[in-house]
Each structure stands twice: as C-alpha cells, then as structure tokens.
C-alpha cells in the first residue's frame, strides 16, 4: 500500500489545474500554504481561468428582497435549490438606510446604500462577497445632493468594471441629465457627454452583456386630449468602452408586448415578456433574443422569439438562471385576502422554456419575497488592483 508520503511531486501545471477546480472558500485558505501558491492565487490569468472553470458554470442565483421593507438581506440559491443567507458587506449604520444591488459581474457586486425616505444615496461600494473585499466608491465629481446608480458591469475589452450614474432621478428624463462613469481600474469618475435624447427615461435595472449595459427606454411622444401619454419604447444600450448610448428598436409583434425584464440568454441580450389575452383567461411568457450585426434587411439588430410558453397564471418573469426563466407572482388587486397575496408572493417559479416544465421554489421558510435576481458566481476577483489588458 502506498502511503501519502509516496505521492510524487506534481508539476506546476497539474497543481494549477487542480486549484482551478476548488471553491473560493478553500482557495482563500490555501493562500497560506506557501509563497508560490499565494502568488499563483492572485495572478489575474489564474483568477480568470478559475472563474470560467466548468465547476463555476452553474451560477448561483442571487436574490434581493424587492419591496424595500427589509433593510439588508441577500440570499443565494444554488443549483441544488439550497437557500443560503449572505452577510451584507457592511452593517446597517442607520435604520433609515436600505441597500440595493446595482449590478453583478464576475463575482463582484455593486451595492448602493440609500435613504428609505428620500431615496438619496448614502454610500456606493463594490463588494466581493466570496473574498469579503470591499471598495468604497467616492462621490461623483459633480455630486451635490444626489445621484442614482444606473448600472454596473464588466467591460472585457479594457478589462475594467464600470458604474454609470445619473445625477438626477433615473426614471424620468434620465439621459438628458448629467451622467458620470466610475472606472474601478482608474479609481476615478469621469463626466460623459451624450447627445440630447430629449426626455428619454430608462428602467431601473440594467442587464449587462459583453461590455454593454441595456435598459428599457421610454419617451413621451405626445399628450393626447384625454391626458393619456403616448410613449415610444425601445432598448437603450451603453457601450462601456466607447461610452456611448444607442437606441435599439424593439421587435414588432402582433400582440402588445408587455415587456417585463431584460436578461441574458446564451450570452445574448434577452427580453422577457408576459402577456395575457383580452379576457384575462390565458397567460403567456415570451423569450426574445437580440443579435447585433449586419443583417440582410439592413438592420443592425435582429430580434427573434425563441420561446412562447403558456403559463397557468399571471406571473412575472424576472430573469434567466441556468437556462430557466425565473418568475414571481405579484398580488392581484382582486384577491381579497392579504393572506393569499402573501402566499403567492413567496414562491419563485422556474420555467424551463424548452420542456415547458415548471419548478416551484418556496421561499416561505425564510419569510422573504424576492423580486430582483442576479446570476452570481463566486470568484477571487480582486477589487483593489484591476490590471489593464496585457
């Protein structure tokens, strides 16, 4: 019988391959093995290879309480459907503060601490929950009273993470307001000039795909006699390298699209829509995917409807996780019992678009009702030293 002591010395490349398959928690501990391992574990190429290792292919679902009542709870759901609580980056300094996740990329989260009453920002930080590293983001250059984080994401071309903020409220007229971008690599803010989009507002949450942030955009076109607003709707993208905005038309569909969420499907921008027919008897969830390129039609963008699935009740898609559409049910006004509302709200529905199979996940055990979801993978990604591409 060979003993452990008879183990051969493994060459560096084999050790590197083994270490890439280890979870972040173990790797953090193994930084203390020797200097060589410590240095290897902070090498940018190792960190990137580890992040893209097949073991990390099953991202975790990061859930955030969406009703602003609960101050700072994040939960993580793994592919075995185990729900784990995540300790927030910083304790709550003041009971009037709340937290929200601005975005999530390569294991880094951008978290905004804001005042519940005024919605004014208090603190913006970038956080790696796996390594527990935190970076406080300084105030924007022209920050006087307020700013609103619009998005956070990774830009692969310049190997940088960027935060986009608007210095006025985000929902109305936001792209006509002063905008600034923070670069994690340079550690500084920069004002960005955009052409006048005149009254263009964007949705709360950005989906980030391949170096660009995407929102739903809306613009009031005219006010009709009966005081109803007419809107032009589109997708607004922000290229994190060029720092320019582009307006992308939405697909044409026979039905009136009820655009629910932007997400990522097979590394492409995806749009989730929920639709009900006129007599509110049947419900449907659609998954659209956008591709950019030169198309024969002369268009720069092409939308295709990948899936259209009948759903048993009115549910609201919130994103895509492990190729499944994650949905929540919101309370309907005609349900008289608040208890019923409660019951329907703490269930997540995972819909497999290709098999039409449903999985229900009951969050009642923890008593939270999630409405914002992010795909999150643990990583060793450092926050302090982001290196430019070599």
């Amino acid at each position: 019988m060979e003993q452990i002591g008879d183990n051969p010395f493994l060459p560096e490349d084999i050790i590197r391959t083994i270490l890439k398959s280890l979870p972040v928690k173990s790797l953090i501990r193994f930084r203390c093995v020797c200097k060589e391992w410590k240095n290897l574990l902070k090498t940018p190429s190792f960190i990137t290879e580890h992040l893209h290792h097949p073991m990390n292919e099953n991202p975790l679902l990061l859930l955030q309480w969406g009703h602003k009542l609960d101050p700072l709870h994040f939960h993580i759901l793994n592919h075995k459907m185990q729900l784990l609580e995540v300790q927030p980056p910083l304790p709550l300094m003041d009971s009037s503060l709340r937290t929200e996740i601005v975005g999530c990329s390569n294991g880094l989260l951008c978290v905004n601490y804001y005042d519940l009453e005024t919605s004014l920002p208090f603190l913006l930080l970038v956080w790696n929950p796996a390594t527990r590293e935190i970076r406080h983001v300084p105030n924007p250059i022209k920050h006087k009273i307020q700013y609103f984080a619009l998005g956070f994401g990774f830009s692969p071309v310049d190997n940088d993470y960027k935060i986009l903020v608007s210095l006025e409220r985000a929902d109305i007229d936001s792209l006509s307001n002063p905008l600034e971008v923070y670069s994690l690599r340079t550690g500084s803010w920069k004002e960005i000039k955009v052409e006048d989009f005149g009254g263009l507002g964007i949705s709360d949450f950005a989906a980030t795909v391949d170096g660009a942030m995407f929102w739903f955009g809306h613009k009031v076109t005219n006010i009709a006699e009966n005081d109803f607003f007419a809107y032009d709707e589109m997708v607004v993208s922000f290229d994190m390298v060029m720092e320019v905005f582009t307006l992308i038309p939405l697909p044409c569909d026979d039905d009136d699209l009820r655009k629910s969420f932007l997400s990522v499907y097979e590394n492409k921008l995806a749009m989730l829509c929920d639709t009900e027919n006129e007599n509110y008897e049947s419900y449907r969830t659609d998954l659209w995917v956008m591709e950019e390129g030169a198309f024969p039609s002369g268009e720069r963008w092409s939308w295709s409807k990948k899936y259209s699935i009948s759903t048993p009740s009115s549910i609201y898609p919130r994103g895509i996780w492990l190729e499944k559409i994650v949905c929540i049910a919101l309370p309907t006004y005609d349900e008289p019992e608040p208890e019923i509302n409660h019951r329907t709200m703490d269930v997540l529905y995972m819909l497999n678009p290709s098999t039409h199979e449903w999985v229900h996940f009951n969050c009642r055990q923890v008593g939270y009702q999630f409405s914002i979801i992010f795909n999150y993978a643990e990583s060793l990604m450092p926050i302090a030293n982001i290196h430019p591409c070599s």
Partner: protein
Amino acid sequence: MSSSVEAITVLSSDGDEFKITVSAAKLSKPLNWMLEDVCFSDDCDEVPTIEVNSKTLVKVIEYCEKHAPRANSGASDSDAEELKKWDIEFMKMDVKDILFHILMAANYLHMEGLYDLACQTAADLMKGMTVSQIRKIFHIKNDFSSEEQEQLRRQHPGCSFD
C-alpha cells in the same frame, strides 16, 4: 500495424507486461502514435515501455478499457450516465493512494477524460483539508517568515498557517 491485432503488450516502468486492447490504447495519443510506429505482429518482439508504474498502469488500463467502446462509437445518454457512475466508483476505490500517480500518468499519456476526472477528485479531497494537510500531500514547506505570517494575518483575519 496489422489489422488482425486486437491487443498489444506494453511494459510498465517496473518492467511488468500488460495487455491493452487496441481500441482502449487509442484513448491515449502517445499510445496511438506507438501503435502506428511500432510493429506489433507476432514476429516482432519489440515491447514498448510506458513510463508509468505497474500499480498505476493497471488502473489506467482499466479506465481505458471501460471508456473505449464509448469513445470509439459514441454513446447514448443512458450509457453516458452509466459511465459517469462508473467513474465515481472507479475514483472511490483505492485510487486515493495513487491519485497523484494517476494524474501524472493521465498527463503523460494525454488522456483528457482521466486527467479531468483525477483533477476533480483531487480537488474534492482537498476542499476540506487544512493548510498543513495540503503541505504534507504536496511536499510543500511553509516558506513564510514569521513577519510575513503576521502581515497575512493582519490582512486576512482568521487565516491559518496550520
């Protein structure tokens, strides 16, 4: 190479003879090259040596023979599922004692499937180990000075060098 040959004989680094079927040997690129280069007919007495010890080579050949039918003909999902279960059992056996030897052999023989499987097995074993256990199995000396250890402890409270 004569097409009538179904199995070949190879020598381990300990000098023991082993039989391996041609289809199983094809899982390894170097073995495949050997098949093309070396004459394996009966009147040829050259027996190639594989730089892997006998104990490890037994396991490597066992793996190859099991995986060969699937690698050569493609497999249904149920076969793949069965093979996955077999891999888990294969790695559960006394392999732990020779895991690092298997890693070296799979690397040397360019056997991607076995290499990935062995790396994952090693990672699973290491997951819960302490720093000193890791140093022991990898023959690593703690080369941090006491000042460096102190500094690391300050940077990462709770880190352990034992």
